């Protein structure tokens, strides 16, 4: 194995936290159970990594195998990256093609390799008909930089693709082109059932009118379909302190107060949608919260006008 590849293996394995090491290596499935058992996992991390790299050399690991390991590491740490979302739209008159994953992968790779001679493209299938694509970019004269790859996650049954990278901007049109040949159809989610009907006639809701109003306003704001899955929203406030009390220590402060508010949840938008029906908040909710799907962003900077 050449030195640069061995070094890449070393650095990739070194990144993996010890708590995740076995899980990641097992998911990678490149080193056998027997081989893993020969490694003493109680040593210092550098020594463990060295032993693992030697095993990789024994198995004649290729760049492709290293790329797979890198994808798996990134899948475990996907929340540490910032992802952009792209939505593909169908041109008028385009037919709906049946999607073939293998065909997609091969044509994607071909398009990139035709345009740039030096590029490493690797694929890994994942849940819900999605594929993770790792792209290491090079230039005409330089080999691909394996340490700054771009990731694209494409959910084949939807028109959405997620990308993450430090150096993607110039290569965006190329990526777009490689998606062009594949149209996709959105799958319509089933509508959730409306208000659950209280079958027990001995329970009477005094505020029925108010409840119905809350449901109606919530539906107007959020719609009927399930919300997009979002895990957090962050608001950076740079506003002057406002107080109801006259005077007070901060009331006369001229400079804006800096404050960060972060909402996080396994499913933030559904949580916001259920606030008013659950009686935890009044409708209408603050437009700062409800504008998230419309504006398509979840990082906000708020300044005084």
């Amino acid at each position, binding site marked *: 194995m050449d030195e640069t590849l061995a070094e890449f293996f070393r650095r990739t394995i070194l990144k993996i936290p010890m708590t995740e090491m076995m899980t990641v290596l097992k998911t990678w499935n490149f080193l056998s159970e027997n081989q893993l058992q020969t490694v003493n996992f109680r040593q210092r991390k550098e020594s463990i990594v060295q032993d693992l790299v030697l095993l990789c050399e024994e198995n004649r690991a290729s760049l492709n195998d290293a790329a797979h390991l890198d994808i798996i590491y990134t899948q475990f740490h996907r929340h540490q990256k910032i992802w952009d979302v792209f939505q593909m739209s169908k041109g008028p008159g385009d037919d709906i093609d049946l999607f073939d994953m293998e065909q997609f992968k091969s044509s994607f790779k071909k398009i990139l390799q035709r345009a740039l001679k030096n590029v490493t493209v690797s694929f890994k299938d994942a849940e819900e008909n999605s594929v993770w694509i790792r792209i290491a970019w090079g230039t005409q004269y330089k080999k691909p930089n394996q340490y700054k790859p771009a990731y694209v996650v494409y959910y084949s049954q939807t028109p959405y693709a997620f990308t993450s990278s430090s150096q993607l901007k110039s290569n965006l049109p190329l990526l777009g082109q490689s998606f062009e040949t594949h149209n996709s159809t959105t799958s319509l989610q089933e509508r959730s059932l409306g208000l659950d009907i209280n079958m027990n006639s001995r329970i*009477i809701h*005094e505020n029925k009118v108010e409840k119905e109003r809350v449901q109606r306003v919530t539906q107007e704001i959020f719609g009927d379909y399930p919300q997009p899955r979002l895990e957090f929203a962050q608001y950076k406030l740079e506003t002057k302190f406002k107080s109801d009390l006259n005077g007070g220590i901060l009331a006369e402060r001229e400079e804006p107060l800096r404050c960060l508010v972060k909402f996080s949840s396994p499913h933030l938008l559904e949580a916001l949608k259920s606030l008013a029906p659950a009686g935890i908040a009044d409708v209408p909710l603050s437009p700062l919260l409800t504008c998230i799907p419309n504006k398509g962003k979840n990082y906000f900077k708020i300044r005084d006008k």
Partner: protein
Amino acid sequence: MSALRPLDKLPGLNAATILLVGTEDALLQQLADSMLKEDCTSELNVHLARALPLPCSVNRPRIDLIVFVVNLHSKHSLQNVEESLCHLDAAFFLGKVTFLATGAGRDSHCSVHRNTVVKLAHTYRSPLLFCDLEVEDFRASMAQRLVRLLQICAGHVPGVSALNLLSLLRGSENPSLEDL
């Protein structure tokens, strides 16, 4: 909309009506369901309201017991109860009002201090019950208790009135003001 009065309507035959007041509809609904599962010789009616005053209604039966539900996780729910208390006739506080605080089990989620509700109940001279309504078993036993309280407040238990009950409950449960 006038204040709710305890004795401005005639009682229904064998009927006992409880009014649960609180912001979190789901909790109230679950409590109501648990209460109605109990075996009871009286005919139970449960009314759920977000706040007082109630919308005008001639058809509403006489309300025998009002339970104000405060979720200790939510200042909004406390504020709602405090504002609703103003719309209640003073005569209700002779044994026909109870406070119920939920959420004490998850201390890290509490934004309302226990003592705040204790003081509130003390101010209104009414009993305070604690129960984590989200836990099914606790909710079921609280429902049993409320059904019993309701029967007494509706006058269905011979020999015990709401006022008797008040003195009985005050002694054992509520700490005196000096202890707070």
